[in-house]
């Protein structure tokens, strides 16, 4: 049978559609969504499907998970939480303390007060510094009231400390500088070309993303980081690898949702 060009064209189109090809290419394949809880705010996302092995990731104040493409040139997708921010949140610790303090020994009570106090060398914002000082003052009031057996006063002070702690809300702009990708922070800054940060939205929250390229071993790598704050926790999604896998990274990031976290 002689096939015309039109027939070949039609057959090619049918095959492309059947194989998930065609204009725009196929959607990256993701695994079912998984919920991770690295601190007080859980995060859910769909990891890359097979071909990426996972490992724990803990460096630079971030803890989370890294997916490494097997048999590739060192490509990785990481999602993590900047715990140096999240660990400052006292709302859960204060709520638990309010429930338990009257059943604790005096020694344990005072130890817990010391643990909850917010003593830092630097603050992310004036707003945080002001409210942290209120939390600390009320904890001091609580401590004195406990020592002198004035339990009603003690409870009131603890409630005020909790109110102040709940008022501390970190915005992305206040905290993102801690983790923002910059060529000058790298050991070999001349390998990198970094684009301007782009504002966006992720899981209903304002987000920021930075894209860059890196030349190494006669190969051009693409990099992208996305930052988002939810419930006083700063999450960082990070990609380094070949440009062809950027859509996969974007799909993983777009699958992010935030289930209710502590004190929500």
């Amino acid at each position, binding site marked *: 049978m002689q096939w015309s060009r039109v027939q070949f064209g039609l057959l090619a189109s049918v095959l492309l559609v059947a194989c998930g090809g065609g204009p725009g290419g196929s959607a990256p394949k993701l695994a079912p969504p*998984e919920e991770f809880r690295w601190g007080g705010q859980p995060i859910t996302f769909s990891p890359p499907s097979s071909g990426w092995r996972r490992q724990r990731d803990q460096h630079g104040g971030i803890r989370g998970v890294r997916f490494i493409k097997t048999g590739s040139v060192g490509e990785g997708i990481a999602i993590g939480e900047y715990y140096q921010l999240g660990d400052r949140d006292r709302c859960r610790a204060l709520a638990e303390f309010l429930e338990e303090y009257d059943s604790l020994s005096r020694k344990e009570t005072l130890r817990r007060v010391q643990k909850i106090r917010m003593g830092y060398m630097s603050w992310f914002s004036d707003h945080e510094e002001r409210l942290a000082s209120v939390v600390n003052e009320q904890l001091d009031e609580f401590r004195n009231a406990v020592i002198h057996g004035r339990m009603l006063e003690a409870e009131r002070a603890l409630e005020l400390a909790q109110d102040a702690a709940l008022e501390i809300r970190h915005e992305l702009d206040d905290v993102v500088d801690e983790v923002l990708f910059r060529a000058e922070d790298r050991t070999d800054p001349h390998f990198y070309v970094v684009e301007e940060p782009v504002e966006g939205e992720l899981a209903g929250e304002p987000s920021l993303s930075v894209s860059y390229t890196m030349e190494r071993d006669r190969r051009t790598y693409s990099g992208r980081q996305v930052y988002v704050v939810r419930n006083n926790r700063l999450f960082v999604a990070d990609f380094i690898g070949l440009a062809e896998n950027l859509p996969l990274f974007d799909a993983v990031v777009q699958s992010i949702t935030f289930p209710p976290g502590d004190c929500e």
Partner: protein
Amino acid sequence: MTRHALPSVLVTALLLGACGPSPPGVIVRAQVGEHELGLLVPEGWQHFDNDRQHRLQREIARIEIEDLGPLSLAGLEREVVRARELFRDGRRDDARSVLRGLDPAATFPTPEDWKAASPSWWVALQAKEEFGSGPIEEAYSRLLTQLSELPDKSLEDRARQVLTRFGHDSARDDIASVETVEVGGRPAVLLMTWDRLSHAQRKRHCFVENRGNLLVLRMGLGQHEEMETAFESVVDWLDFA
């Protein structure tokens, strides 16, 4: 199909149904400590017998089967009665040896319960000749009374408690899932742990209560994905004599 073919097909189907599915490996009789088991050795796996600990192994992958002893109050009570019988027969060393093999601190429901019972425990354990038999008999009686009056921990609580013996570190690992089931007609808990940050290093454990003794089947070295089918088959085919 011919008229003659139909009955033979029916007979074959009935026979297949009656015989049930065949095991994906060989069932061996295994004595794991106090547990007499029918144990599936999956195809391609080797079986190593080390008395209280058995191992199924294929290359680097390992499934460990271990008798954890009487980690329940009922089991502890049974062993204390056995030790008392040995003591009464004048076999003080054997009685001591039975008590020494137990882990009462891990078995009593709370540290306070263990603290209250420990003076009697130590008198029974030491069983010094100069005590005579009166105080030692008394210590056994007090101990057995205390044991009979305490509520036992649930199987799940005991399973969670012994996880640390297998390298579980609660700062690094999480318990991903817990399921109460029956294995070989005995109460059991299926428990999966994983690395808290990455959900990697997945390990399955199956704790089975059998006559007061706790048996554990667990994934040892190796990749979870490569062992999962074998592990599930071993649990599914586990049989107690």
